[in-house]
């Protein structure tokens, strides 16, 4: 019973630890003079009104949605196909390949790759195109996505697919009818992960997209600083809230709809 008390205390501490930083996000946007302290706001919605006046704020969220949705779709589709192939086919060196890609992806997401990425996009005529951003972001996210999904695939029994094969289903049909629904929580997890990554990514869309009409929220957020680099806390806090809401909502939706967990788990 002492253990129970200990466990609850621990969980409350955890809850506090994780909730505390979020407090500011909940109060500052509604405060007419926000400071860096989370405090009971003098309630106002002016900040939202001010933000609505910004010509790019809302459209940038939409841009973020495009990019995130596109990337997530691409990553989930390709990662699912690749993970399925890797999980079902025994190729020597398969794991080494996977680890190699995973390591390379860590370079590609770093700062030093920006010139090659830019030149690549330039040569492929993908400057100022959302597709370019989506492709480049996908390239960086795919290895880890494959890695995570492969373990999901490994943990689904082959008898489902074999059963479908006996009925004459083609590989694509098996994928569509059986595998995808079965690993749906995994796909959802990877999708959310990809979206969260794209949502926060600044450098790639900034470098590749011209002009704020296509710029996602991560880029627009930087515009809310002044000439001297000072933050306008009123707009910034409000925008932060708006900027966070879509991912939070998506997460709530996905987790209630598909379950958000590694069922079976990632292992080797």
């Amino acid at each position, binding site marked *: 019973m002492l253990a129970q008390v200990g466990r609850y205390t621990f969980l409350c501490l955890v809850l506090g630890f994780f909730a505390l930083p979020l407090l500011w996000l909940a109060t500052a946007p509604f405060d007419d003079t926000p400071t860096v302290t989370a405090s009971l706001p003098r309630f106002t919605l002016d900040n939202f009104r001010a933000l609505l006046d910004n010509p790019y704020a809302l459209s940038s969220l939409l841009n973020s949605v495009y990019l995130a949705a596109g990337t997530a779709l691409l990553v989930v589709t390709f990662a699912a196909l690749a993970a399925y192939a890797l999980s079902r086919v025994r190729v020597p060196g398969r794991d080494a390949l996977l680890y190699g890609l995973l390591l390379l992806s860590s370079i590609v997401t770093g700062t030093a790759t920006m010139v090659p990425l830019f030149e690549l996009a330039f040569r492929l005529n993908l400057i100022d195109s959302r597709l370019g951003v989506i492709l480049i972001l996908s390239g960086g996210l795919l290895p880890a996505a494959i890695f995570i999904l492969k373990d999901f695939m490994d943990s689904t029994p082959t008898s489902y697919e*074999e059963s479908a094969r006996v009925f004459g*289903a083609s590989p694509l049909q098996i994928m569509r009818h059986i595998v995808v629904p079965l690993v749906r929580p995994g796909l959802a997890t990877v999708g959310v992960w990809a979206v969260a990554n794209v949502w926060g990514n600044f450098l790639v869309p900034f470098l590749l997209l011209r002009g704020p009409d296509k710029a996602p929220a991560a880029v627009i957020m930087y515009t809310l600083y002044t000439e001297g680099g000072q933050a306008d806390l009123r707009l910034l806090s409000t925008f932060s809230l708006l900027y966070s809401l879509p991912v939070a909502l998506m997460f709530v939706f996905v987790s209630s709809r598909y379950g958000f967990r590694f069922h079976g788990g990632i292992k080797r």
Partner: protein
Amino acid sequence: MSAITMRELTKVYPGGVRALDALDLEIADGEFFALLGPSGCGKTTLLRTIAGLEVASGGNVRIGERDVTNLPPGKRDVAMVFQDYALFPHMTVRDNIAYPLRIKKVDRRSRGSKAADTADELGLSGLLERRPGQLSGGQQQRVALARAMACHPQVFLLDEPLSNLDARLRLEARTFLKRLQRELGVTTVFVTHDQAEALALADRIAVMEGGRIRQVGTPTEVFRRPANTFVAGFIGSTPMNLIDARVRGDELAVAGARLPLPDGAREQVTDGERLVYGIRPEYLDYSPTAVPGALTGEVVVVENLGSVSLVSLDVPSDDTGASDDAPAGDDTGAGRTSVQVVVPEGGEPEPGDTGWAVPRPGRSLLYRDGNLVTAAAGVPAPRADATVRS
């Protein structure tokens, strides 16, 4: 509805395991055929090779007139029910049953009604909108059968379809399955490692060991005249008693007793030869008093089997001292052998009593080097294709 013919069928797994070893087998049209054998003997592999889920390493498989050895599974016109049923957890029962039709591009309306019909036949009508997770084991099994039936295949392949059910349900499902197969008349191959299931259900049984077939025959043939000690030990709810014996003129010296030689065995054995004497516990009659021509020993365990009991007698081994070629598993210690006897209700002894076990005439078997020697009257000799390749 077709016969299945396998010739020299071999399957070697990538790791080098030879799961099927140049196996020949014919399964007749409409037959309910059981594959029986211990774990790892290759039953599932054989089934999967028929289905096309494994590619044969050698030999061929014909279904009806067609050589299907190199056809993909979807083109063989077979249906398979897996041990775990492999019901798609994300589809309703209706969608599960209709799935093969969906693959065959039957339009939505008519596949819905066909699924409903099939479900009806198997008493699943009320469950069409449920998901597999909401069904009991027995219901799941029937859904799996319904799905297999839905596209009217030529051959049914069932991999241990009953082993996930609990004991009571298994009995019901057994009867149900048998009746169903009889009505549909589809050639059915059925894998099990439970001999009782095989005996109760099958028209014919193949007993496998190590990728080979040790005997093929009707349940009665296999039960009464196991072609070798392996089959003898495997078939029967209690294993056959297998005891070292030595021919002594017209009689047999078995565990200290003198028993008559089985009918017609005299010509096939030589005097003084060492053999193994086999008799089922069901074919031994227990007597609390001394009888001639009986095995005798102390009662050590009495197990209640319901209306009968299984009595284990501790008999002295034969003094021929042939312990090195004694069949494994039946000695309890040096110089002693356990003999099991089925005793009907009312006659059960107590542990510690001394008892006598009298073989019923015509039920004794003799094995030389593991293979059956005697051919008793009334039952045909084991088929040619069931003899063991060395």
